[in-house]
């Protein structure tokens, strides 16, 4: 598999140091947590993304993110990359993140673009979940 060095590094670092790369979970019942889970085991990838937000004025800002991903190396790398992009962003800014951004940063091979699509879907769902609680 011809992965870019970025995918390989991201994957390996996440594996070596999961806490530093935001692997983990929040309590999904908390009011300030939004959870998104997309994909299916039968398809070979499932991403779970959780955002923890705080309100500042009428803005909601993503304070912290946790994720867990079952999938190939690029799915794991895509999740870890996305998480870093999200921290500190407002929800409106987070909604602007597109799969293309991830695919570009990680230089994903064409056959792996669906990993970045999945990542985009997971953030959309997490935001929806959070907003439904407000």
């Amino acid at each position, binding site marked *: *598999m011809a992965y870019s060095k970025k995918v*390989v590094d991201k*994957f*390996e670092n*996440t*594996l070596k140091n*999961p806490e530093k790369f935001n*692997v983990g*979970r929040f309590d999904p019942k908390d009011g300030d947590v939004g959870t998104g*889970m*997309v*994909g*299916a*085991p*039968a*398809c*070979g*990838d*499932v*991403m*779970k993304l959780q955002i923890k937000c705080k309100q500042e004025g009428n803005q909601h800002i993503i304070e912290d993110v946790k994720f*867990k*991903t*079952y*999938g*190939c*190396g690029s*799915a*794991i790398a895509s999740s870890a990359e996305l998480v870093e992009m999200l921290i500190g962003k407002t929800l409106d800014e987070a909604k602007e993140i597109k799969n293309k951004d991830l695919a570009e940063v990680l230089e994903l091979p064409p*056959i792996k673009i*669906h990993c970045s*699509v*999945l990542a985009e*879907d997971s953030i959309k769902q997490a935001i929806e979940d959070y907003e439904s609680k407000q």
Partner: protein
Amino acid sequence: MSKSKPIYLDYASTTPVDERVAEKMLEYMTFNNNFGNAASRSHSFGWQADEAVELARSHVANLVNCDPREIVWTSGATEADNLAIKGIANFYKTKGKHIITSKIEHKAVLDPCRQLERHGFDVTYLEPNEGGVITPDAVKDAIREDTILVSIMHINNELGTINDIASIGELTRDNGIFFHVDAAQSTGKVNIDLLTLKVDLMSFSAHKTYGPKGVGALFVRRKPRVRIEAQIHGGGHERGMRSGTLATHQIVGMGEAFRLAKEEMKSDSEKVTEFHEYFLEEVKKIDEIYINGDIQNKVPNILNVSFNFIEGESLIMGLKDIAVSSGSACTSASLEPSYVLRALGRKDELAHSSIRFSFGRFTTEDDVRNTLNLLSNVVERLRELSPLWEMHLDGIDLDTVEWQAH
């Protein structure tokens, strides 16, 4: 050379050429050695090449106990499979147009069958039992009046399971049907006796048995006589069954590799059996693993394991200093998980999470021990990352979850 070479546990994909084989091959290439064309009848260069080719042919025949005249050189097992299947189908098409094969065959058998379907043949693809074995009963039930050929592999390349080709051969012979066996994974691993087996055609590969890539052979039985239509024409080599100047150095390599296989089958197999037992015992200590294929009915050099809740490609990436194969979709170009594991009735997620370990002549105890250490560590880390593992620990039955497939 790199600092540390990865550990090679992918012998079922290919094997390194044995040094002794490589040495012999070097004697048949350059001007100072023997470079002749085995078809040249008019000078000593040709005679010597011919002698080397015939000696190699007898080594191959000797390993599987057949007449050297029953061995046809090909470019590999894929060509041998093609020649056998299309060769029989085209020669005997007036007798019938039905072929029986199985869902767990190598693509080198499945794709020629698909091709024949496009030309009006009817193919039955047998399901394996849950242990990954094609039973003689399954073959028996599929036989029809117009069946001309049964093609069933000896040892499955993904699982290592062994099919009972002796019993299947009895059935086909009784019914006047030709029987082809892909034995690419068998040579040097299990005994093959074509004198007693009622097999009509058998495919061999050199590079799975410490010979070079690019050469193989097809056994074509003389008694009772089996005829095939040639697929490559030009020059009438190999008694018209496979034209083309013989690749002397490749053939010499295959001959030497098969000669060594006969000599060393016992010691190779004893060593690999020990590794297999040790590996199995240790890998079973990991939670939620599944051995694919009937453990009681397989060769010890191949072990296929599914690590539940982990995707196979990520496991391979985590095991970066170890060379293994996966049935995961992500390691294939097609994005489909292993069709062999799916044919066993395994859930797709278990097919995605499968790894094939295969041991061989140059595997060491350290290789096995280091692999096991790394494996348990990486499995643990990847499960820490897996939402499925988390749900499993929370007691959630994953089959009841409504997934959002994409």
